[in-house]
């Protein structure tokens, strides 16, 4: 009996080990988290008020057949005011909107939480203990100038008050210029050609500013199935570019009309800085069989970042939007941090007209319907756990 007990205990230990191993259901290696990196070293911040600002140039497009008239560039301005003094500080924050940029007609002006963009570098660099996003300010109009004022904000040590708002930056009349698309610090030129059954789009992205562009890249969507009609069948996209290229097939995305179409999406990866005056070239060829008549409006997406002097070491930091100003009763030291990034989608004004070579029109491909599935009863034990319990029960009966 003693021997049976010894064997049983050994048996149980082995099974508990099996059971414990089965608790870890995930396979694969564990990697450390490293979401963000930055070449510039964060300075030691003590006895200072840091104004850390970020401008994101984004966009709004209202779908339309001629959607280019409905493109607006929007600036999302965020300012983190972080108190690195050992005592609370009370201050007033002012932000001036340039008269030439204050396009009240489009009315993309908004304040507070709803204007924040994802993935700001600022909290990961400066780690404020608590944050408070300030909502609508007092607004003062002086002639064509507008000033936003947040009065008497008290910030505790190592905490941050966040000023955030969006504003119209530029409408489409300032963006499209013949064969060029102009954005702050960037010009995109393009030329479309058609050879037999091939559609060729040559794009160049040039740095027209004085500061280098970090990770500038250009993405292009070419629709082949528009409004449910297959215009080009068995299409293939080939791209010639010095940048890293990823071609997403079977992708539906907003084409140049603003509506979702299906085709190929070129996603590029250019890790090197694009210096002032330099350009990236992309030659994109789409080949396939013309199937039905229609018009193809591509769309373009560009991303770039300017962050070469975020702590204003040169004293000539470039910004696309005026920074905030602080008013305090007592004099305080002020430190600065700033970067600007653009993430902009642009409907193309250029287009291809597709005319089938032959009369081989096919019916539309039906969009597959989603299957339905009924919910099943929950399983509260795994099979191996149940087996283990049955064996234990048997041993328990034998030892009684």
């Amino acid at each position, binding site marked *: 009996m003693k021997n049976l*007990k010894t064997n049983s205990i050994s048996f149980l230990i082995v099974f*508990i080990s099996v059971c*414990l191993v089965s*608790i870890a*259901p*995930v*396979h*694969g*290696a564990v*990697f450390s*988290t*490293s979401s963000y*990196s930055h070449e510039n070293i964060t300075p030691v911040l003590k006895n200072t008020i840091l104004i850390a600002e970020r401008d*994101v140039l*984004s966009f*709004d497009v*209202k*779908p339309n057949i001629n959607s280019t008239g409905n493109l607006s560039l929007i600036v*999302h301005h965020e300012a983190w005011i972080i108190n690195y003094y050992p005592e609370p500080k009370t201050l007033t924050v002012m932000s001036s909107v340039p008269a030439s940029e204050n396009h009240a007609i489009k009315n993309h002006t908004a304040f507070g*939480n*709803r*204007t*924040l*963009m*994802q*993935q700001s*570098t600022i909290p990961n660099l400066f780690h404020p203990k608590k944050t408070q996003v300030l909502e609508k300010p007092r607004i003062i109009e002086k002639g064509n100038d507008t000033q936003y004022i947040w009065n008497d904000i008290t910030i505790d040590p190592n905490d941050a008050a966040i000023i955030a708002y969006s504003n119209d930056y530029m409408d489409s009349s300032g963006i499209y210029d013949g064969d060029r698309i102009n954005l702050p610090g960037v010009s995109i030129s393009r030329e479309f050609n058609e050879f037999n059954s091939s559609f060729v789009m040559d794009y160049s992205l040039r740095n027209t500013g004085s500061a280098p562009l*970090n*990770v500038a890249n250009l*993405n292009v969507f070419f629709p082949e199935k528009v409004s449910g009609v297959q215009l080009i069948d068995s299409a293939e996209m080939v791209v010639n570019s010095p940048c890293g290229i*990823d071609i*997403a097939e*079977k*992708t*539906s*995305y*907003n084409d140049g009309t*603003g*509506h*979702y179409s*299906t085709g190929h*999406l070129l*996603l590029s990866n250019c890790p090197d800085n694009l210096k002032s005056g330099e350009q990236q070239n992309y030659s994109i060829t789409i080949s396939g069989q013309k199937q039905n008549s229609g018009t193809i409006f591509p769309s373009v*997406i560009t*991303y770039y970042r300017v962050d070469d002097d975020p702590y204003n070491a040169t004293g000539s930091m470039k910004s696309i939007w005026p920074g905030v100003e602080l008013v305090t009763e007592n004099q305080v030291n002020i430190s600065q941090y700033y970067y600007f990034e653009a993430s*902009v*989608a642009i409907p193309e004004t250029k287009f291809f007209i597709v005319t089938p070579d032959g009369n081989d029109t096919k019916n539309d*491909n039906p*969009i597959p319907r*989603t299957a339905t599935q009924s*919910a*099943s009863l929950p*399983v509260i*034990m*795994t099979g191996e*756990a149940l087996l*283990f*319990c049955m064996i*234990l029960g048997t041993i*328990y009966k034998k030892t009684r």
Partner: protein
Amino acid sequence: MKKILIGLIALCLIAGITTATPTADAFASSPVNEGNSIADTAAIVSTWQNAGYSPDSRTTSAATKSTILDYWQNDPYLFFNNNIGHINTDTVHGAPANGVMAYDNEITSTEIKYLYPYQGLQYSFIFMNGCNSYQNPLRNAFIVNNPQMYIGGVTLLPQYSSEDTAADFWDYFLIHDQEPATALQNAVTDNGTNYMYGIWMSGE
């Protein structure tokens, strides 16, 4: 001996419950409390329930890497996936997209790509609401698991309106019975997020 065995049986039962394979037919996660992420995750769960499904959800500290991967890998009934959160990209906001940030750690694209078994993601509909989540290698890591649909961010996303887009998508898709691309078109139009999402469909 009798007491030891009774204790072990109890331990085994607890372990059995702890290690139970997830069986929800829809799973929503939101590792970050940012913008409307928590409220929209709750709205998505509610939409799934209204459509007749039995969802699970995990937010903030409960949305750990092991929990999320457990659903993606082991849940044989999983049909709908939604995640609102951050994507780890080499260049902060651009390509490549290396993984999905859970609360405690990163779920790398390599781990997603080599899930075995991959019965949670297989045949499922996936909405990864995060900046640049349509970039590779993340997009392909999900697609090799043979889902029916994958939606990801193509640009930087605004906090509130992108999260609201995800909630509205599921409503249009499941409550209004629209095809996925149509549901996404309506959701982005409602929230001013046109041109911010790509959608991949296995049937295209």
